[in-house]
């Protein structure tokens, strides 16, 4: 019964914090944050965690609205057209924001129509095989791929998505040709690996941990202590940050700077919040917060790099 009372008190407090907004300062009403992706994915989960804690720093609630469709373009277009008053934000990732503009005509211009509020955190993908696979290193996997002349089957989680792009980067840098098959998201691609339909996939650490000794990690985009420190791609000679998915909050361009500053100061306080850290640790996510102006540089830089990548990929 104790738990039930606790739950009621917490929801009551949450409710009160929403209605007790007598102060005339921004935000006077709840802020809507659009996620251009489906429910239950890592963006949804991350957002559920920080939006349940941020009201105490922001003085008002952030309400998540999921608007999936057209590889994230439907939700992004919706925010691009929203009033730039700080009450509509976008929670997206670098591939939707910085890569898609080079692939197809968009009804918005990401760099011009949005400005970065913050990067909440990032995840780095890892290359994995089944534990009964004979490959113990990335090199051995790629050696066989080369000798099988493009017949080796690798999977990814959807065209121009968060594991497809790094996979293409890795393969093109290592000059390996394989049979790349798309799966409908990270879960199905893991199923494809486990059932033996594909030899290897890229997956984020939180998904790998759950599989225990069923899969073997060959290499990761960043240092991963929880996976027993497998080789890092950059140590293997791969250039730049490959496989990083940045989870970023954007605001429509034209949103007043003082409002963005208020948001940033609230969001940046999260990284020292105990409850936030506890939940993020459980999700297997880091809390590597980066402020908007700093991320703008990364944004411009990555946009430029993706342009060349897309050129290479669509040519082949």
């Amino acid at each position, binding site marked *: *019964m*104790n*738990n*039930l009372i*606790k*739950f009621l008190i*917490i929801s009551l407090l949450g409710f009160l914090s929403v209605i007790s907004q007598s102060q005339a300062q921004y935000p006077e009403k709840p802020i809507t944050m659009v996620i251009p992706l*489906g*429910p*239950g994915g890592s963006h*949804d*989960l991350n957002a*559920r*965690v920080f939006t*349940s804690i941020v009201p105490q720093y922001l003085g008002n609630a952030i309400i*998540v*609205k*999921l*608007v*999936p*469709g*057209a*590889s994230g*373009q*439907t939700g992004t*277009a*919706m925010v691009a057209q929203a009033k730039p008053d700080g009450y509509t934000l976008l929670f997206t990732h670098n591939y939707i924001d910085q890569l898609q503009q080079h*692939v*197809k005509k968009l*009804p918005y211009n990401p760099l011009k129509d949005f400005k970065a509020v913050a990067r909440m955190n990032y995840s780095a993908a890892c290359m994995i095989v089944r534990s009964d696979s004979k490959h113990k290193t990335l090199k051995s996997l790629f050696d066989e791929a080369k000798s099988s002349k493009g*017949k080796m*089957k690798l999977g990814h989680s*959807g*065209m*121009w998505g968060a594991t497809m792009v790094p996979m293409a980067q890795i393969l093109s840098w290592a000059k390996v040709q394989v*049979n*790349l*098959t*798309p*799966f*409908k998201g990270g*879960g*199905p691609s*893991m*199923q*494809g690996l*486990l*059932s033996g*339909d*594909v030899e290897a996939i890229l997956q984020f650490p*939180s*998904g790998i*941990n*759950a*599989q*225990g000794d069923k899969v073997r990690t060959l290499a990761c985009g960043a240092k991963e202590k929880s996976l027993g420190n497998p080789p890092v791609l950059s140590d293997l000679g791969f250039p730049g940050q490959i496989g990083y998915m940045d989870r970023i909050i954007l605001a429509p361009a034209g949103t007043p700077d003082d409002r963005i500053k208020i948001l940033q100061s609230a969001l940046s306080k999260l990284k020292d919040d105990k409850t936030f850290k506890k*939940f993020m640790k*459980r*999700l*297997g996510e880091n809390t590597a917060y980066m402020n908007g102006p700093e991320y703008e540089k990364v944004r411009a830089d990555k946009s430029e790099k993706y342009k060349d990548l897309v050129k290479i990929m669509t040519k082949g």
Partner: protein
Amino acid sequence: MFESFLNSFPLLFSGGSFLSVLSAICIGLLIGLFVGALPGLTTLMAMAIVLPISFFMEPLIGIPFLIGVYKGGIFGGSIPAILVGLPGTGASVATTFDGPPLTRLGKGRKALETALYSSVIGDLSSDFVTILLIGPIALVALLIGPPELAAILFLSILIISSTSNGSVGKNMIMLAVGLLLALIGQDPIGALSRFTFDIFELRAGIPLLPMLIGLFAIPEILLNIENKSKNFIKSKLNLNKEEKLTWNEFKKLRKTIFRSTVIGTSIGMIPGVGQVVAAFVGYAAAKNASKHPERFGKGELEGIAAPEAANNAVNGPTLVPLLTLGIPGDNITAILLGAFVAHGLRPGPQLMNEQGSLIFAIMLCMIIANVLFLIIGYFTIPIFSKVVSIKKSYLLPLTIVFAFAGSFVFRHNPADLYFLVIFGVFGYILRKLSFDVTPLVMAFILAPPLEYAFGQTMSLGNENVLMYLLYEKPIATFILCVTPLITWKLWQRSKKLRQVAAETTEDIRNNN
């Protein structure tokens, strides 16, 4: 594994927490029931919104709470489907065939009770099967890859469209239209835009919910208005005086419920197929087995029991890939995965070994949720029935309001209202020309996953798909081989049934 099953009992029942578990499930069920009953609000949205609340509860309270929302929401969606013919999800489309006719005959309460009992029985039995067979079901999930899924989806489309009403030719036209409409938007493999004519609203494809409401509810409303003068005297429905479902009527439904439960449970074991197919296949099978197939679609209780038992029987087995392999099969299980993870529990083989008793305790909660649901449903049905006991002259405009509001609330996108109106008019024309829209909707819902699985199969086949299927995928090859046989048999049978139906209508006409 058996030991962890036994250990799950003390985990759940000892200590003072059992009461909190019960109340959490009840609150969840009520939330789900009401959200599901409002057109346009989906179970999925309800679960996403209450997810953070579960973060702050114990895992054995928070997760059953979400399961309650889930189960309540699925039944809630059937309420508007039965009473006013508004399908809230694809899974409740099959229920709109016999629901509104029953309500018009003054049997709305019987229909709702049939739906409740069939849902609970279907769900409960599938949960038991799941607990007993969790290991084998997990193996089945790993046997089903893209080629098998493609073969199964292809067979499902054929089964459903060959048992629809109307002529075979008309059904094939509807099937083709559905497939064409499904092609609009981004192609699933390469993410290129198709048939969008540079209209951005079409890039994400045609939204399912406004289309369903347009095709099913709007024609129903328009036809009702046309018949106004004819039925004016009977226009006031009073469900309070309506009779409850009798024991004899329920006994007649036993076979249907059992058949649908088996169908639903088997479909649930196959990841990626889901409730929509289960409901339609359950309906088709019941109609096929019935001695009076001509009564289906005109107010037959079996037509409610069949889809409702089948779509709920999917629930148990769909959780298996999540719990044993850590792979969520659909959006609902993906949200449950989130709830697990936020409690520091990462479902997968590891968790099954280390904390198997917790997993079994959660499955026991699903059984408890069903029992509680039976009680809550029984007492809320009269309340919901009252909603339509108002005058028809108020009910029809109210239904139109719900149709528009539901389509808008779904994505808050004004473009969806255009889709609603276009499909409403289209559906009305089709009804007048006596086309059955079921094959269209089925093709529209199943074409994208079929295309995806087909594309994957082509890719995995390394340019020699025939050899790949024959040597590496015997299950898919087998399904593809029996497909023509099954379809032929069903087609022959439905031809005979159509003859019977035609004769009986003839008889009725002669008697009049």
